[in-house]
């Protein structure tokens, strides 16, 4: 009964993904130098607001192998709940079943919720929720292709903040986010999934570059205090660049809308 789903045609209980010839040949290499870009380079970002017309605000972000779509509904009234003086922000993340190398269950699982909590933490300090009593803002994030959890959280926060701005919700500043990993002696920004598995420690920072304030810090693995401080500085500098991208994208979409 473990994964029995009445609504779908269930496959065999135990199944493994096929192994392809070129996978057998290419063994996971120990990455000492970064391939394709310098350690402090982030991958180019494609960001466009206004993807989903039914939502109050939406955004789609794509960075090489990470593709995330975000929709914002709100502010809308909370029914059947006691009075709340400050508005509530609900962030729901869903990994599409085809987003990872191994198929994920269509049902919501544990990783969805933890990713949602991290993106929620990145967004909450930036929103003026005290202007929205009795209301809630729903942010729905769908991850279409996943290249490492840190990349998803970072890109998801950027997409969500763009969508919130697209929806016209008042905020203190745009939130941008960047991830970094510590390899032997160096810090690499914007890691892919393969680089993140070989890293000693991973660090994701979300901040509001306009105000110079940090909204969320998430670190896993092992790092020393000096490495964390260095990562913070590098990520903050990158977040400023991402902020330019977000602002340009929002301005362009407004000017085309009229």
């Amino acid at each position, binding site marked *: 009964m473990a994964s029995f789903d009445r609504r779908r045609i269930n496959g065999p209980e*135990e199944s*493994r993904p096929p192994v392809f010839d070129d996978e057998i040949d290419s063994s996971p290499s120990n990455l000492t130098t970064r391939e394709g870009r310098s350690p402090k380079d982030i991958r180019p970002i494609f960001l466009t607001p206004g993807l989903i017309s039914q939502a109050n605000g939406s955004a789609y972000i794509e960075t090489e192998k990470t593709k995330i779509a975000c929709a914002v509904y709100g502010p809308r009234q909370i029914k059947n709940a006691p009075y709340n003086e400050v508005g509530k922000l609900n962030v729901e993340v869903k990994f599409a079943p085809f987003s990872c190398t191994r198929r994920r269950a269509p049902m919501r699982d*544990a990783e969805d*919720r*933890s990713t949602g*909590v991290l993106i929620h*933490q990145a967004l*909450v*300090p*930036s929103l003026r*929720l005290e202007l929205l009593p009795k209301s809630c803002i729903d942010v729905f994030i769908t991850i279409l292709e996943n290249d490492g959890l840190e990349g998803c959280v970072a890109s998801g926060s950027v997409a969500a903040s763009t969508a919130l701005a697209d929806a016209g919700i008042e905020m*203190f500043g745009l939130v941008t986010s960047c991830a970094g990993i510590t390899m032997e002696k160096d810090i690499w920004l914007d890691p892919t999934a393969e680089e993140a598995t070989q890293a*000693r*420690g991973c*660090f994701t920072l979300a*901040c*509001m570059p306009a*105000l*110079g*304030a*940090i*909204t*969320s*810090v*998430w*670190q*896993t*693995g*092992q*790092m*020393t*205090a*000096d490495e*964390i*401080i260095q990562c*913070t*500085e590098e990520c*903050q500098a990158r977040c400023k660049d991402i902020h330019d991208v977000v602002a340009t994208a929002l301005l362009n979409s407004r000017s085309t809308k009229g």
Partner: protein
Amino acid sequence: MTSKSESSYIQSALLSDPPCRADGRALLDYRALRLTTGVAALANGSARLTLGGTTILAACKLEIEDIEHAIDATDGRRISCAVSCSPAAYPHHAPAALDELQHDLAHLLNAALAHAALRPANLTVLPGRKAWLLSLDCVVLADAGNVHDALFLAARAALCDTRVPVTRPVEYRTPLHAGGVRGDGDDDSMGMGMGVDTDGAGLDTRHAAHAADFELADYWSEGAALEGWDRWPVCVTLNLISTTHFLDATPQEEAAVSLRLLLLISCAPAGPPTLHGTRLIGSGELPPAQFKSLVQDSLTYAKELKKTLDAQMHSERARRQSGVLR
């Protein structure tokens, strides 16, 4: 739930000069820490920790995991953590909210303790085939503030209390047939081997290059302690209020504060302290300069906390060995 006037009262007391708290502690004082180990008789290791009023019960259970046929190719020796919040500890929470709280605490524990670098080396039974799986289960019995610190302290104490049964690999050989011809001396590991000194016994526990199974070396002994116990981190929660911070908040103080910084720090005797996890929780924003100074301050707090916990564990071990009943 605290009212606005109560929150403001607590905040102004914390920001006053000299700062004062409801129970008279200084900003950086922890409440009394009490530890009892070996509370769950059937578990391989357990601890019950009380920090002020917050009570956490943590227990470790070992079971054999077959890693040869597992779908994900891992080395085994996994640690899997689960947290359960007793409804008695949170009488005002709805069941769904309790589930979410449990899940968030378990995720924090797993992210730190289940990391590949912290896997103990002596959890291997048969390299590449079988290994111990350590399940760490924590129960929050009472919550009087600062659950995160108490949870990690209890988890660390339970892990240090865990005893892994010592196993040895075992290989089966068929006995030498009467009148059988002796081979050249090199036999295949599993089959018709005739070691010179088997004497007709089917079991040879000495040369087990391709061991098929394992047995307990000593049925009655508890086992060896988990390796790498000085790598387990402790959690320091810094509650941030304006430009100052304080430790070990009571529930009212937690409600009055809008931002907390969680740091998981392990202090090995040699080398600088390592951070195993960092998390910012709350709806306030943090200036980067303050974040840097907080990270530096937390290293000192973690050292003190770890020293206190180690001293308590030491006295507990001495008490249990001397057989004093508590």
